[in-house]
Structures are given as C-alpha cells and as structure tokens.
C-alpha cells in the first residue's frame, strides 16, 4: 500500500513538471545550429589531425605532404575559431554531451 502511494506521488510529480519547450528565438536557433555544425567540423578536423600524426610517426608523409596537410588543418582550425567567435562560442563549448558515453571531444 505504501509503495502504491509512493508511486502515485511520483506520477503526480511528473505530471506537474513542465514539459520541455523548444526555444523559438531565431537568434538562439541560429547560434545552436552554428555550434552544432562547428562541433562536427572540429571533431572531423581532430580525427584528421590524429591520422596525420600517425602517418608522420610511420614516416608515410613526405615533407611536402606534411606541410600541405598541416596548413590545411591549421586554416580549418582558424576558421572554426573565427566563426565561433562571431557567434560568441568558445572553443571549449564545441562539444556534445553524449550522456553515459561522456562528451564528444
């Protein structure tokens, strides 16, 4: 009986809780989309950077290739930072919370 009462209280509490609402502020939506896109771009950039480091370690990149890949990654990082700054998104905010798995980056 006591358990049933506890369950009833829990259900009532859930019913009273306000449902999640979508924030329809256009500026906020724009910023959220930019943040998501930049997070994914930065994630891919970091993957490419790791692969480039592995290839440097393995000696499978020529000097010219190292310079070209490094330059491309550097420019991409600058672009991500610049675009983030325009929308007041700090580099450390470029991540996704993946719940129990942790954070994306």
């Amino acid at each position, binding site marked *: 009986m006591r358990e049933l009462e506890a369950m009833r209280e829990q259900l009532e509490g859930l019913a009273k809780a306000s449902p999640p609402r979508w924030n329809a502020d256009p500026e906020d939506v724009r910023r959220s989309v930019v943040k998501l896109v930049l997070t994914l771009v930065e994630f891919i950039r*970091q993957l490419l*950077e*790791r692969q*480039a*480091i*592995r*290839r*440097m*370690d*393995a000696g*499978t990149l020529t*000097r010219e290739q*190292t*310079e*070209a*890949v*490094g*330059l*491309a*990654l*550097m420019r991409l990082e600058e672009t991500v930072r610049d675009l983030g700054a325009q929308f007041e998104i700090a580099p*450390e905010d470029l*991540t996704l919370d993946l719940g129990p798995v*942790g*954070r*994306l*980056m």
Partner: protein
Amino acid sequence: MKPASEGIYLYALAEPDLPRHLTVLGRRLRNLPIGNVAAVIERRAPPDFTTEAVRQQHAIITRLTARLPVLLPARFGSVTDEPALRTLVSRHRAEILAAFEQVRGCVQMTVRIFGMCDDVADEPRSGARTGTEFLEQARQRSKHVRPEAGIVRAAMSACVKAERIAAGERQGLLTVFHLVPLERLDLYRQRASGLHSMLSRHVTVTGPWPVFAFAPELF
C-alpha cells in the same frame, strides 16, 4: 568483366605460408603473396561505412587471428589496387617483418581511463607559422605522457611486451594499448584488476583482441 569500382580489399598481412584461398564467415578471401609477406585480400567493391560492416570485418579478423600464428590487421576500409598494394608492402617490408616478430604469440589488451584532467589539451596553442610547425606542435601534445599512464606502466610492465598510448584522444580519456604474450595473460588480468583502485578513476580493461594497435600504418 569486373565492375569498375571493384578493387582489392585488404584485411590483413600475414606470413607467406598460407593457403591460396580462405573462406571466413562465408567470405572468400585470397592470399596475395608479395615477396615474403602474404596479403589477405578480397576482390570486391569498397564496403559501406556501416556499423554492421565494421562488425563483420572485426569478426573476420578475429577468426583469422585464431587460425594464423601471426596476423597484422589492416584498417577498416583499406581498398586499393594490386600495383599500389605491392608498392606499399615493398616500401614497408622491413617494418612489417619486424612487426611479425613483435606480435608473434601476443594479443592486444586495451586500458581506458575515464575522467582525466586535460592539462595539456587546455593549454593555448602557440602560433605556428607553417603547416609543418602546426602538425609538429600537435604531435608533441599527443606524446605528452600523463601521470596516469606512468602508473599503468609501472603496474603492468612485467606482463607487457609493448605499449602504445593513443595519440590526441578526446578530452577526459586516456587509452593505453598493451601487447601481451599469451603466457602472461593471466598475470596481466590479475594485475589489471587492481588498476581501478590505483588510479581512483573509472578504468576499463578489454581484450584479448587482435593486435590492431601494433600493426604498421600502410595507407
């Protein structure tokens, strides 16, 4: 005539005394001898990049590892053509033969430590002027050995033949790959069970796996 998109899909490199054909999980694989290295290949179109395809390749590599004394797995999606594969293997022959000797009779165990502080990752990047400088700085950051890695090394070194620390991982995570001789696997497991209390962090130890982290990067 073969479809234009069909190429050579490389699963692994092994020692040359292999049968010409191997059927693994229903896939007809071929031994392509390249000097004293056997490339385990399949003539096929590139796979779809799906979880199912990755799982299937993992299962094939696991079966091959159980059947062969030495196997160096290739990365998922290693598609090329025969002349390019021959050139790659020839160019890396010494490295491949050394890796055969290193991994013989060994398996890979993987230690992951979660909830790390990212002292290095948070450091501001000093302004690189060239692409080479930029990559070199990233490489130095990735080589930084965190104190936790030192604790793992001290605890496990007696049962480990080689160690590799994953470069530049996502924040809060450190992954250490160990190459463990089969005869020391029980000792390894015994010692690994104490890592959690030594590090006071969430630690996972998985394996034994094929020696993915100790195979040379060909592509």
